[in-house]
């Protein structure tokens, strides 16, 4: 990772000790570096949330927008200047709660931007409320007795909306994460990476996930590579999250190409 992609003068960052956001940011900067993009032509756009503070630590043009609204701003920037690489940095709440509509519409339009979801399964910024990605039964400040609502599967949601590149990774698997971020950015069309990170301060603490270090290394235990998962039975996969590339199709291909089997 090129250190000059960071605004050193603004560090240390505001994140809590052990917050996963820095790890995703690190991977993102590494992916940008690997692609050898002209840093003058990279724009990071974010919403509101802990994760959405990430762009302001980078040396690129960066736009911290409103809660949930990074994607339409990114769409405006991209359409106004097609030379730019526009990357949206967003949280699970920012992208899938208040910003859910923009997410599915960007996927549908196949606008050539990349959305990186810093997914910590809760609203970190406001103190650990449930997000649409919070697993069932998890404790948050707004689900004191355990979450009753089912979460979205962000991969399915994006795919269902027509995204042409969708991947999921976790911060433990840094190479995997960088690879998929790189492919997503390079993808010609709408791309999304669900990057699972930890919020030790709230989600971790409320759900007894241990220290930040434990939250990082435990990803080994509950994440399964897609290639591995394909050889496993549903029982073996119970409670596991599968990581890898789920959709990678040509831009503006007939929608049926991405059609889940059961629906066509």
């Amino acid at each position, binding site marked *: 990772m090129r250190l000059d992609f960071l605004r050193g003068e603004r560090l240390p960052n505001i994140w809590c000790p052990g917050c996963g956001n820095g790890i995703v940011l690190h991977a993102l900067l590494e992916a940008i570096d690997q692609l050898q993009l002209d840093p003058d032509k990279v724009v990071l756009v974010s919403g509101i949330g802990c994760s959405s503070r990430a762009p302001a630590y980078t040396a690129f043009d960066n736009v911290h927008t409103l809660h949930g609204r990074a994607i339409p701003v990114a769409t405006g920037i991209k359409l106004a200047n097609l030379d730019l690489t526009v990357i949206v940095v967003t949280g699970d709440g920012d992208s899938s709660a208040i910003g859910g509509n923009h997410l599915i519409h960007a996927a549908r339009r196949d606008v050539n931007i990349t959305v990186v979801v810093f997914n910590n399964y809760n609203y970190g910024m406001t103190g650990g409320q449930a997000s649409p990605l919070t697993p069932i039964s998890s404790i948050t400040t707004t689900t004191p007795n355990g979450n009753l609502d089912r979460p979205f599967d962000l991969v399915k949601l994006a795919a269902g909306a027509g995204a042409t590149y969708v991947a999921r990774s976790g911060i433990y698997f840094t190479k995997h994460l960088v690879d998929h971020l790189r492919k997503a950015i390079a993808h010609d069309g709408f791309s999304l990476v669900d990057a699972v990170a930890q919020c030790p301060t709230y989600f971790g603490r409320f759900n007894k996930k241990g220290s930040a*270090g434990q939250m990082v290394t435990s990803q080994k235990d509950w994440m399964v590579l897609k290639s591995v998962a394909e050889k496993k039975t549903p029982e073996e996969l119970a409670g596991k999250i599968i990581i890898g590339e789920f959709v990678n199709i040509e831009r503006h291909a007939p929608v049926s190409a991405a059609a889940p089997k059961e629906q066509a």
Partner: protein
Amino acid sequence: MPEKKTFKITHNRKWCKNCGICVAVCPKKVFKIDRNDRHAIVNPQDCIGCQMCVEHCPDFALAVEEVKNE
């Protein structure tokens, strides 16, 4: 058997938040969090340069470089 490589570990105390993630991910137990809750490099000589600590440090506080001894 190839010569054992040596690595220089740089730790930026100003940015480090002593979170312990490097401790958890380092396969060689190079770091620990000391009694004052502070990050400490305890076994630098064991470092194999795998970059796990660097890539997982959320605060950009670590760098590990091979020391070329010509």
